């Protein structure tokens, strides 16, 4: 009454071995087209990255703001290529798959041929193409890297250069800059006591941010130690999971021993993770405080707050 049986028959009528040859040609053609299409898109991404990276590197030194716009633009174009790939895949490959799939019977011998087609195409699209897209994206993103050592050193050099150059607007006497000012400061003249306003350069105004960036850069090995431990814990977890699956089919004393040993390792690793993170955080914040001593108290409060966070 719901036309179920008629549908069943019509599907079976479509699923005739005479049709297999035609479908085979269609699948082969679609696959070849997809592979060629993606290859051309990958070439475009490569051309773009090759041309953009030197330009980005030059712009980074010249103008941070323009660099940001250019970087966004290049990433936007990489994304447009990826969107085109995904959209085309949905339209062309999935459509062919669905239309053939609708015509064949579940038990048809052509089913595995069709499944194989989809597997090959999706592997090309979602593994190989995606990998290449990510590689080009990372290549472009690398230009964003800021060398904070260099930036901090230029703040120090600038301070050395100007610290004895600031003169009182009233009497002309030297007002020595006893520290790196990173905000506008009113400085009294030691000779005539009149008030002088000192304006730090745009570079010096970045001291707080540069301090954090440099502190993070200098303590990166500790952060890596923490991430490595996280990875190790995940690895042990997966090994344990495999053993558990094996044990489900019959547990032996040997297997049990192996599982206990892994469980022990995992507990050890799990306990180390927060210890390593705290070690990194403490070192990073201490370094930051050292680099920007004027804000050491506030930076310490920031650290303490993170330790007490409820979520």
């Amino acid at each position, binding site marked *: 009454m719901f036309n179920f049986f008629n549908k069943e028959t019509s599907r079976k009528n479509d699923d005739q071995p005479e049709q297999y040859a035609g479908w085979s040609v269609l699948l082969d053609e679609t696959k070849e*087209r*997809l592979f060629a*299409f993606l290859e*051309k*898109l990958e070439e*475009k991404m490569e*051309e*773009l990255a090759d041309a953009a990276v030197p330009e980005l590197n030059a712009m980074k030194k010249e103008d941070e*703001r323009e660099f940001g*716009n*250019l970087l*966004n*633009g*290049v*990433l*936007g*174009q990489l*994304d*447009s*290529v990826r969107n*085109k790939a995904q959209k*085309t895949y949905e339209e*062309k490959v999935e459509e062919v798959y669905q239309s053939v799939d609708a015509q064949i019977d579940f038990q048809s011998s052509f089913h595995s041929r069709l499944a194989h087609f989809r597997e090959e195409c999706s592997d090309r699209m979602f593994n190989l193409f995606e990998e290449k897209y990510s590689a080009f994206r990372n290549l472009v993103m690398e230009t964003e890297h800021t060398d904070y050592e260099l930036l901090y050193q230029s703040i120090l050099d600038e301070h050395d250069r100007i610290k004895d150059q600031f003169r009182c607007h009233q009497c002309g006497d030297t007002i020595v800059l006893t520290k790196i000012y*990173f*905000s*506008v*400061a*009113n400085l009294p003249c030691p000779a005539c006591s009149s008030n002088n*306003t000192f304006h730090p350069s745009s570079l010096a105004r970045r001291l*707080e941010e540069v301090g954090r960036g440099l502190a993070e850069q200098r303590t990166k090995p500790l952060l890596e130690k923490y991430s490595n431990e996280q990875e190790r814990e995940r690895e042990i977890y997966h090994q344990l999971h495999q053993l558990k699956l094996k044990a489900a089919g019959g547990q032996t004393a040997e297997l049990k021993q192996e599982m206990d040993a892994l469980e022990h390792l995992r507990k050890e690793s799990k306990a180390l993770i927060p210890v390593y993170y705290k070690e990194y955080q403490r070192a990073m914040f201490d370094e930051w405080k050292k680099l920007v001593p004027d*804000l050491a108290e*506030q*930076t310490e*409060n*920031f650290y303490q*707050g*993170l330790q*007490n*966070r*409820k*979520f």
Partner: protein
Amino acid sequence: MMQLNPETLHGTHYTEEQFDAELERRIQAQIEEEGDDYDEDDLPSWRRHFLKQLYAEWNPGTSDDEFIQFELANSMKYSGYASMGFTRESDENPLLEPIHGISLKDYTAIAANIGNFDADQLYKAFGIDEAIFSEVSVLWPKRMQEDTTFTVATLYGQYFMEVGNHPVILQLKGEGGAASGNNEHLDKLRSDPYFYEELSAARTAAYEYGIDGAQWIEQNYGINLVDFQSVASEWMALRNQNFNSDEILHFGNYNQEKTEEYRAKFAAEQGGNIADDIQF
């Protein structure tokens, strides 16, 4: 239908203490049940699970959206952080104490109005000078870092909606100090959610084409970044205060549609995307 307290959104047929005690009881029971398997990291998700369960049980007929609304209104209490549109000033919070006499509200008003007035005139109206404002501009953002509940940053966002109405600013405007006049696009941005979504979408698409999106809006509609952010805060607070997932989805889709439209427009202006000539 249950009666809800308009402020806390708790049902009025029980007390908050009763609710909290039951919530705590369920959480403790769960911790006991887990025994050795209990992981402290899971506590926030257990808390949310029982909060939702209990709210639905004690307030039958409330929808998922009403629960989210309740969660937003009580986020500080149950989750430990502030929510836009639900955060109030408090004299007891040391992180909100004025810095060099400048409250967070003052700081927001000065920072947002710096382009609208002569800077020295603006500082003077608040009884400070350039040096103090410069220092305060370092210290208020530091306070935001110190504050793990996000109260300072959330209030900053809320105050951003009223930067034109600060008494000192109103006084300055009265004295004819305001540089920028009214702008019909800005009024539309404030009253028409579709227009707001369209400009947000245009901004996103602009950045993807290497264009400074904030500048693009200023050039084409005369709305500067500060005003845009102020209106963005208003829409965000309004959406939190009248939480409706269908509406959010509707405007999300509209935003997506407009983003595509502007992508096509910017692409056309730049002679297309790099892979336009490649065919399947």
